């Protein structure tokens, strides 16, 4: 199968990106300034991320659609205001996660942002679940560009005035060069920022404007260290078909109204786990010293019994130390529990810790 290119491929090339194949796309992993610098620049200034490989699924419909989507997602969608977003999951009957996603209510339906590697399968599953009753468009004609970091609001507002008035996890249609672009205040770095859905034709010109105002292109390498410091899950690592949202410590994303009555896919398991607890749960882990524990590293207790496994681990440039997430047996999930990580045949001490590793600075309620 041919590897796809995003509308910004040439711009990445011109900026001397190193490329990697990711979910069937040529994506920039880093630029010449390197992952650590890119990471720090995003935290202190403003980073641009090409996330056009992600799925932008538009589903059009009215009240019936809302009712049908509530049978799928553990959300209170009838009360969700227009232009407001929620983090959620597409699950199987056992509450295993097919994908994690952001769903936004728009005028004529919903916009769902899906992971690149999952989007085609998600489309099939959702088409089947919705019995092809609604018009569904997995839009390949639009790019998705994230701009993240404390200076992003100022930079973007110079191009699109009034974006500064958006609240966290809400969006709106704006006009750019006489075309409609949809901007949400959201992201995946633990910083204030925006995600911009824009036609492929305008994506490069728009990104160049952001660069002209001081933002810098950032690769997937730094995107991973940023999200890990922010304690955010990456599908295929922290989340997969064998893990539930309760095990992933994401029960906050399940609407309270839906926790009692259920009636969504996987709800029997979710409600059971909410009541009875789970055997394993996602935690943050800080290795002592500078040791980096990567994915699949085994976690042991003080009695040398395996109690879990790391799902992501790297060096956190802003934390200035190693950070990791993983799953451990529930009784070892308390903060400050001492555990041991087996790296290159030796066991190294580490501590269970709270998430995030790096404190978020999302802007909430600018309109209040």
């Amino acid at each position, binding site marked *: 199968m041919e590897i796809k290119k995003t509308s910004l491929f040439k711009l990445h090339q011109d900026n001397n990106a190193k490329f990697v194949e990711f979910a069937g796309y040529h994506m920039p992993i*880093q630029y010449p300034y390197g*992952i*650590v610098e890119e990471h720090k620049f995003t935290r202190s200034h403003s980073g641009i991320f090409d996330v056009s490989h992600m799925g932008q699924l538009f589903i059009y419909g009215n009240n019936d659609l809302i009712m049908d989507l509530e049978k799928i997602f553990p959300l209170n969608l009838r009360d969700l205001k227009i232009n407001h977003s929620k983090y959620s999951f597409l699950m199987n009957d056992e509450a295993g996660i097919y994908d994690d996603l952001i769903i936004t209510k728009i005028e004529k339906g919903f916009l769902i942002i899906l992971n690149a590697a999952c989007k085609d399968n998600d489309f099939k599953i959702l088409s089947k679940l919705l019995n092809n009753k609604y018009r569904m468009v997995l839009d390949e004609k639009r790019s998705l560009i994230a701009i993240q970091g404390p200076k992003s609001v100022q930079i973007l507002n110079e191009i699109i005035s009034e974006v500064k008035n958006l609240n966290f996890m809400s969006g709106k249609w704006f006009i750019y060069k006489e075309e409609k672009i949809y901007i949400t205040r959201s992201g995946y770095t633990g910083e204030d920022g925006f995600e911009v859905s824009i036609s492929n034709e305008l994506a490069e010109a728009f990104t160049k404007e952001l660069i002209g105002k001081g933002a810098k292109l950032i690769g997937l390498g730094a995107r991973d260290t940023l999200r890990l410091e922010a304690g955010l899950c990456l599908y295929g690592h922290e989340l997969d078909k064998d893990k539930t949202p309760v095990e992933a410590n994401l029960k906050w994303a399940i609407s309270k109204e839906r926790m009692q009555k259920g009636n969504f896919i996987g709800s029997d398991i979710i409600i059971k786990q909410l009541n009875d607890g789970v055997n394993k749960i996602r935690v943050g882990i800080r290795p002592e010293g500078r040791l980096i524990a990567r994915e699949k590293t085994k976690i042991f207790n003080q009695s040398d019994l395996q109690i879990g496994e790391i799902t992501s681990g790297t*060096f956190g440039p802003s934390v200035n130390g190693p950070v990791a997430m993983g799953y451990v047996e529930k009784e070892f999930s308390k903060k400050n529990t001492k555990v041991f990580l087996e790296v*290159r045949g030796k066991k190294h001490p580490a501590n269970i810790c709270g998430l995030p590793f790096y404190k978020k600075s999302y802007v909430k309620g600018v309109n209040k």
Partner: protein
Amino acid sequence: MSDVKYSKEHEWIKLEGEIATIGITKHATEMLGDIVFTELPEKGSNVQKDGTAGVVESTKAASDVYTPVTGEVVDTNQAIVDDPSKINQDPENTAWFFKLKVKDKSEMDSLMNKEDYDKFAKESSS
């Protein structure tokens, strides 16, 4: 004439008397990216030619460091353990990894000189 030689695993080795100083090349650091963790062999341990003698990790991945010759580890560079970013800054000088008392100097003969290594590095990265 330079007495520094290079291995196909991108280590450099400088022999002074019986003592060889070993590190990784600038080219290696460019391929690895930002180095954030270093593990060195223990002083007094014996390492075998082409065997593992340490680890470097970037934000992306871990890579083994090999020794181009056999010998006993007589010194290690704690500065690069405390601050691994020094390896990116000055890989072929102050950011050396370890020193060996070399067992058999003839093992140096199979290694590359600078010119051959530069050519090798260029080819292996293209």
